């Protein structure tokens, strides 16, 4: 709509109406009236020009648009006229919407933006009741052709040593069934994907091909080395696809038949009872996942029964476990985040929701107050014939403009924050690199949220404002007790919500602090970890042992050399704070029927306890006597000793670590050490442990962890270099990977807790700030509106304190009520928050008290200036105003 046209129409309209008026006057003159009277009579007869004009303007859509443009310009002018109001409103909306959009971007990136596969909603994991979702290959073959599925695939993620011409890397890969890509609906980027009958072939992920093979187009058809064996590259999968698990970057896909080469020392393809293989299927439309899951469970039980009955070596608890395991079909898209992370994310969604509510309540309060302040103007507009709808529209436009500005600012804020959050906190797994840049869906979300805010908290005050008592408003009686009562209720709610958020943030922060400073039971300072997996380079057992002993000897020499950076070192098959562990059987000699103890099992170098600072409680530690070929000796943890031997006579007793190999795993307990939490500070129930010398029994042929203590924090880099050099000198083809400190490992493990603590604190501070702003606004308006009352009271001899209380008392009471209600809500919410915390104490008094104190400080800050103004009222000046 061009402006000049609108102007022209308006002028024409004027001219037309003026002409009519002139004719009326002419007529009156002709009738013999004096000119003055003629004009007056004509005007009276003519009536109200402006309302006609307004009615005319609203007639056509184009004109309606014009009037909107006018209203928008008017609204902009009004917003510019009160810059503080506008800034506060836009800022609170921007923060509220920005926080929501950021969290939604994370949800969008991790939950909604799915794997690049076809119709992901049809894909289901075979989730099992124990250990997540693991079954085995014979069962897979048994149900692979079930007609309710458009294909069932199986996959086993693992690590290999892979590369070309000497450039070997340890990479993640998946052993998969040959129909894997076909079931998922993944297309080849180059070459072909897997086919029935494929053997030593590999499909590369696009990311691996680009990153580590330099996007070499000739690679298809060539050979790639995996674990010292040549595989033919047949193709490259479509860009973006990096395996079935979101958050992991799989480089290679190899047919399941190649398992013996990929996982040397352990085949297991023919074992019908063990649990290791993941199954997923594409459900045909119309099939019911719930009942199909129950049917699959029955088929699993029927399938494994003959094998269970035929295996006499199974322990009672193993039989029990196998018999009771069940299958549930779980949507692939639901499995992207683990339950704990999902729970944390959900909490954040609630927190930002509450924050947005606060921002909206603030905005609503501001608009309501503004409505009251503008009552005179509105009353005047209504009195001169402005339509009610037009006035409401005008006011609503104002909040719409605020919403647009706040929404835009919030979206931009989120566009900056969300990718940072995603990079800083890899929610879907250590290797996850998901893209949290806002997309169209995020934009739509922001728009809806912003519009929702406008509707809920813009429209209501707008209506309220038009229901004014015209006469008293025009007279200037700026009393609006009703509006202020609503304002106080809103303030109370704000304070309550802010308190809940502050208390929750306190809980999360204290939780993180506890986790970070929790006494793990071992010396974790300057502790450097590095892993190697020589079995992937074809090392057999005796070669592995020789290598480990050589590493031990070399590092012992380095510990004497002050330039190495290493003070001490040890070996163990599991790294502390890794979340991984091996379990061991614990069948006590003479008590073979008791088979329910399943402690953690660790194979360690004999100096391990000294190195870790773990204290001896009974007997002796492992030492040089306990070498290969010597009588097998083991040390157990205090809690295991207490549970297995309540009479306290653990030392000297014997047990089997694997009843399937009784001779190789019969150990004598030589000592008891204090408990240590080696796995995960969030899980305090893993204290039962068995430690054996790796020279005597290694539990598994997999990784060995070299642990070295740096001489001081600055020497960690040098110590890492020493480790690398030592291994390189022993075998240049061995890859030393995952070199990290325990601190970094702990940090990485607790990333979700850290994120929630950080974000909830930031959001809670914002919430307190918003509540303070709301309080400030409400009080300032109350004081301003009741200055006359204060002056009269002062003039009549009231003390300043009494006046101050008269003006602010009710508002402060609302704050106090809000705090009380917040405390109640906080206690009521404990059961919701408890699963996220490590110490499940019922109510955290410290967090709650801190929250109350912070909120009271915020309230004092918010109330300070208005209260000061109230006490500084000068009766003479204030009363002269009338």
């Amino acid at each position, binding site marked *: 709509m061009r402006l000049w046209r609108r102007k022209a129409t308006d002028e*024409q*309209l004027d*001219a*037309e*109406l003026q*002409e*009519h008026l002139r*004719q*009326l006057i002419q007529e009156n003159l002709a009738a013999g009236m004096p000119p003055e009277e003629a004009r007056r009579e004509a005007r009276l007869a*003519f*009536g*109200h020009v402006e*309302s*006609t004009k307004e*009615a*005319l303007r609203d*007639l*056509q859509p184009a004109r309606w648009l014009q009037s909107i443009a006018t209203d928008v310009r008017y609204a902009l002018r009004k917003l510019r006229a009160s810059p503080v109001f506008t800034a506060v409103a836009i800022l609170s909306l921007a923060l509220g919407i920005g926080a929501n959009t950021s969290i939604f971007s994370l949800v969008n990136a991790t939950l909604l933006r799915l794997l690049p596969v076809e119709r992901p909603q049809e894909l289901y994991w075979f989730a099992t009741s124990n250990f997540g979702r693991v079954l085995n290959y014979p069962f897979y073959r048994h149900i692979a052709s079930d007609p309710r599925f458009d294909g069932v695939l199986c996959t086993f993620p693992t690590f290999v040593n892979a590369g070309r011409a000497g450039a070997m890397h340890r990479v993640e890969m998946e052993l998969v069934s040959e129909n894997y890509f076909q079931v998922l609906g993944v297309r080849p980027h180059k070459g072909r994907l897997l086919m029935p009958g494929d053997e030593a072939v590999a499909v590369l992920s696009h990311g691996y091909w680009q990153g580590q093979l330099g996007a070499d187009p000739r690679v298809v058809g060539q050979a790639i080395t995996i674990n010292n064996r040549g595989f033919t590259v047949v193709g490259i999968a479509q860009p973006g696809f990096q395996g079935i698990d979101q958050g992991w970057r799989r480089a290679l896909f190899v047919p399941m038949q190649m398992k013996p080469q990929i996982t040397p020392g352990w085949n297991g393809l023919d074992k019908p009872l063990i649990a290791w293989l993941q199954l997923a299927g594409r459900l045909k439309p119309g099939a019911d996942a719930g009942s199909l899951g129950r049917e699959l469970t029955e088929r699993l039980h029927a399938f494994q029964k003959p094998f269970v009955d035929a295996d006499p070596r199974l322990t009672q608890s193993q039989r029990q476990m196998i018999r009771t395991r069940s299958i549930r079909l779980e949507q692939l898209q639901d499995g992207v985040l683990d339950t704990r992370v999902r729970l944390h994310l959900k909490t954040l969604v609630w927190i930002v929701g509450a924050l947005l509510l606060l921002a909206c309540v603030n905005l609503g309060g501001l608009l309501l107050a503004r409505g009251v302040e503008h009552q005179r103007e509105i009353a005047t507009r209504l009195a001169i014939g402005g339509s009610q709808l037009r006035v409401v529209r005008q006011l609503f436009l104002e909040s719409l403009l605020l919403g647009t500005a706040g929404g835009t600012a919030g979206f931009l804020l989120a566009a900056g924050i969300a990718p940072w959050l995603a990079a800083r906190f890899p929610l879907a797994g250590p290797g996850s690199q998901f893209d949290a840049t806002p997309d169209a869906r995020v934009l739509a979300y922001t728009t809806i949220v912003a519009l929702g805010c406008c509707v809920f908290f813009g429209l209501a005050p707008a209506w309220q404002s038009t229901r004014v008592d015209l006469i008293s408003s025009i007279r200037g009686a700026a009393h609006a007790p009703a509006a202020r009562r609503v304002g106080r209720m809103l303030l109370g709610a704000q304070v309550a919500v802010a308190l809940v958020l502050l208390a929750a943030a306190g809980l999360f922060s204290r939780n993180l602090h506890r986790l970070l400073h929790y006494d793990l039971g071992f010396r974790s300072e300057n502790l450097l970890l590095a892993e190697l997996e020589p079995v992937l380079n074809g090392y057999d057992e005796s070669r592995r042992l020789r290598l480990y002993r050589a590493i031990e000897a070399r590092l012992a020499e380095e510990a004497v050399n002050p330039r190495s950076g290493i003070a001490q070192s040890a070996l163990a098959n599991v790294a502390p704070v890794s979340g991984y562990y091996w379990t061991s059987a614990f069948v006590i000699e003479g008590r073979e029927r008791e088979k329910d103890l399943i402690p953690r099992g660790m194979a360690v170098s004999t100096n391990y306890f000294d190195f870790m600072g773990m204290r001896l409680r009974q007997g002796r530690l492992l030492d040089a006597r306990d070498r290969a070929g010597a009588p097998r000796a083991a040390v157990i943890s205090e809690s295991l000793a207490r549970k297995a031997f309540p009479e306290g006579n653990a030392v000297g007793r014997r047990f089997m670590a694997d009843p399937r190999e009784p001779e190789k795993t019969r150990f004598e307990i030589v000592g008891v050490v204090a408990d240590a939490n080696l796995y995960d500070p969030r899980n305090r129930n893993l204290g039962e442990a068995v430690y054996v010398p790796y020279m005597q029994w290694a539990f598994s042929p997999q990784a060995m962890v070299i642990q070295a203590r740096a001489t001081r924090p600055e020497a960690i880099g040098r110590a890492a270099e020493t480790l690398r050099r030592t291994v390189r000198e022993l075998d240049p083809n061995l890859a030393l990977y995952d070199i990290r400190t325990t601190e970094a490992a702990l940090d990485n493990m607790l990333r979700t807790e850290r994120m929630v603590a950080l974000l909830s604190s930031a959001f809670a501070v914002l919430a307190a700030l918003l509540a303070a702003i709301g309080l400030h606004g409400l009080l300032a308006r109350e004081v301003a509106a009741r200055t006359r009352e204060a002056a009269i009271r002062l003039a009549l001899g009231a003390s300043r304190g009494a006046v101050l209380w008269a003006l602010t008392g009710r508002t402060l009471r609302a704050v106090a009520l809000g705090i009380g209600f917040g405390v109640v809500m906080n206690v009521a919410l404990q059961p919701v928050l408890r699963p996220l915390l490590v110490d499940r104490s019922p109510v955290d008094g410290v967090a709650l008290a801190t929250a109350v104190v912070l909120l009271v400080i915020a309230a004092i800050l918010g109330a300070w200036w208005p209260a000061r103004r109230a006490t500084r009222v000068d009766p003479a000046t204030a009363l002269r105003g009338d």
Partner: protein
Amino acid sequence: MGRKDDLLPGTLDLLVLRILSAQALHGWGIAQRLKLLSREVLQVNQGSLYPALHKMEAEGWIEAEWKPTDEGRQAKFYSLTRKGRKVLGDQRARWERLSSAVGWVLETE
């Protein structure tokens, strides 16, 4: 803004269309013509007349043109369009049906 006799709702359009079917007129002229033809019984106020005119213009029943009046002043003259003529026919028929129906009812005493 007292009116002598209110128009029945919906009849203003019909009357204006009827007046314009004879000749093009400006707003003032239409009001005068209505007064004259109804023997001073019906009067229309500008507050009703101009919105009605503009609405009918928007509907395309009448069109407007700025022309000099007899006195040489510029005024906006409205005239009937083809569509307006058809609407006039329809409305007139409706009115006649309606008024005779009202008449029958009143006469059956």
